[in-house]
């Protein structure tokens, strides 16, 4: 199986006034088609920055200082913005941590989902809304019409996250990047969402890059795992290899945290 995505020696810096702070420093990772890869690490370790860098949607003061991001054989770092916008949302889609704030408060859910469909598939607004309703059904939402007309603040976090997932899947992406999608939700909803994601993966057949600080989640879903620490990947391997013989102290810390939670 070829790599769907291959990241080589990625470096990202942030400009803060006159200073530059390195956030990602030479990350290498790869994802094969259909694979579930977890990117683990404590907050601030550079996971999210890495994820955002993949389609270059970083904050304006971030600078990609080097490396390659090869997706489907194309180096995204060398692509023009106009080519990138065709990949974002269509080939590579994202789910974020806090669905309620990552959804635009002034547009109804339907509007936000259909936006990408109209854009990437050239459908009419009416067709796009129908498509959106179907997508909502596929994320196990019972009354899609009501949700389509609702605004984010009117829905619960879990509901918003389902809607968000539906939005991300609108164009059947090859790669879904989920950045701590369950962190802001409570545990029962977390389980539901995780289950949903895995079901959807089966149905839609995307690869999943799942970012979390929580190894218990990783253990449930991951084929392979990368552990990041201070902007670098410090360990990679299958779940088993990492749990059995963690080499880096940070991995051991994460495992310790997991075991502590497990005991409670």
């Amino acid at each position, binding site marked *: 199986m070829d790599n769907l995505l291959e990241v080589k020696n990625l470096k990202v810096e942030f400009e803060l006034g006159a200073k530059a702070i390195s956030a990602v420093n030479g990350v290498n990772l790869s994802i094969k088609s259909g694979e579930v890869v977890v990117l683990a690490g404590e907050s601030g370790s550079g996971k999210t920055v890495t994820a955002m860098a993949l389609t270059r949607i970083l904050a304006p003061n971030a600078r990609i200082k080097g490396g390659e991001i090869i997706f489907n054989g194309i180096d995204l770092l060398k692509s023009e*913005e106009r080519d*990138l916008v065709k990949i974002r949302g269509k080939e590579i889609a*994202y789910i974020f941590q806090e669905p309620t704030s*990552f*959804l*635009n*408060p*002034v*547009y109804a859910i339907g509007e936000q989902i259909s936006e990408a469909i109209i854009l990437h598939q050239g459908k009419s607004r009416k067709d796009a809304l129908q498509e959106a309703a179907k997508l909502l059904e596929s994320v196990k939402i019972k009354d899609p019409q009501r949700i389509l007309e609702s605004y984010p603040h009117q829905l619960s976090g879990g509901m918003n996250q389902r809607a968000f997932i539906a939005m991300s899947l609108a164009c059947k992406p090859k790669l879904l990047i989920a950045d701590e999608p369950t962190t802001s939700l409570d545990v029962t909803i977390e389980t539901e969402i995780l289950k949903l994601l895995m079901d959807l993966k089966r149905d839609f057949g995307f690869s999943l890059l799942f970012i979390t600080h929580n190894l218990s989640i990783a253990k449930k879903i991951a084929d392979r795992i990368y552990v990041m620490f201070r902007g670098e990947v410090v360990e990679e391997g299958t779940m088993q290899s990492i749990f059995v013989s963690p080499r880096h102290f940070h991995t051991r810390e994460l495992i310790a945290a997991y075991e502590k939670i497990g005991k409670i």
Partner: protein
Amino acid sequence: MVSYIFRRLLGIIPLLLGITIISFAIIHLAPGKPTAVEQTMNPRVSPEVRLRLEKLYGLDKPLPAQYMNWLARLVKFDFGRSFTDDRLVLQKISERIPLTLTINILSLIFIFLIGIPLGVKSAIKQGSLFDNITTVFVFLLFAAPTFWLALLFMQLFCIRLGWLPISGITSLDYEYFSWWQKIPDLARHLFLPVLVSSIGGLAGISRYMRSSMLEALHQPYIYTARAKGLPEASVIYKHGLRNAILPIVTIVGLSIPGLLGGSVIFESIFALPGIGRLFFEAVMSRDYPLIMAEIVLGGVLTMIGNLVADIAYAYVDPRIKYKSS
């Protein structure tokens, strides 16, 4: 919603009472009596006459009685007559309204038309040369005393270049003009006043818009919009601007009392018969009924403005809904 508005309107009454009692006390307890603004003593005006005039104005009664009297008439929308020329106060105010309103509305349009794009552009290009130049430029406008700027403009546009008339609203032969001559004539007269009265607001709105837009552009949903593959223009204008512009609605509401307010300074310089001068002269000549009427008008408008701002905001921002309970 209806009951919400009703409750808010009821809430105006105690505030208004507070305002009027304070102002009534201030203006009546303050030294000075209703006299001509004219700064000459006229030996032909005998002191007996002055006393008689005071009696005719009812100023010999105790203050609370005067206030109750005034309040009783206010309930019937009777604001009384001006001390200076015995004309109905309402009439004196209302004849100033069209001009004041015109200038203020034109200024408001001008402010929004220029200020919003300027602020948005600054925010998008945050830190760029454009941003820094507009920031400094806007601060400069803000920093200049109005009358000074007005005089500089007059010397430049009216004397040096001779493009615009100095003051007034119309040319003297205006009545003999046909409509296609009237409109440019009005425009030429109003240009500088509108420009000068816009400057503060222009600077304010563009700064406000800049920070509001900056805030919007740093919101998480902007990343979502980008991640969806939306073109940058769509990201900025559809997702950023729409959110950033919401508070402007509030500002429009809050501008309502300002629409009927005037600035005595630029009205004096441009010789415009606006409300600002009326109020100023009323204060200087201790024209109590007129002062009180303007305070009531100002207070009511401010409160209505706040209400309109709140309602309008609820209307445009789906996050806010007033419970009608």
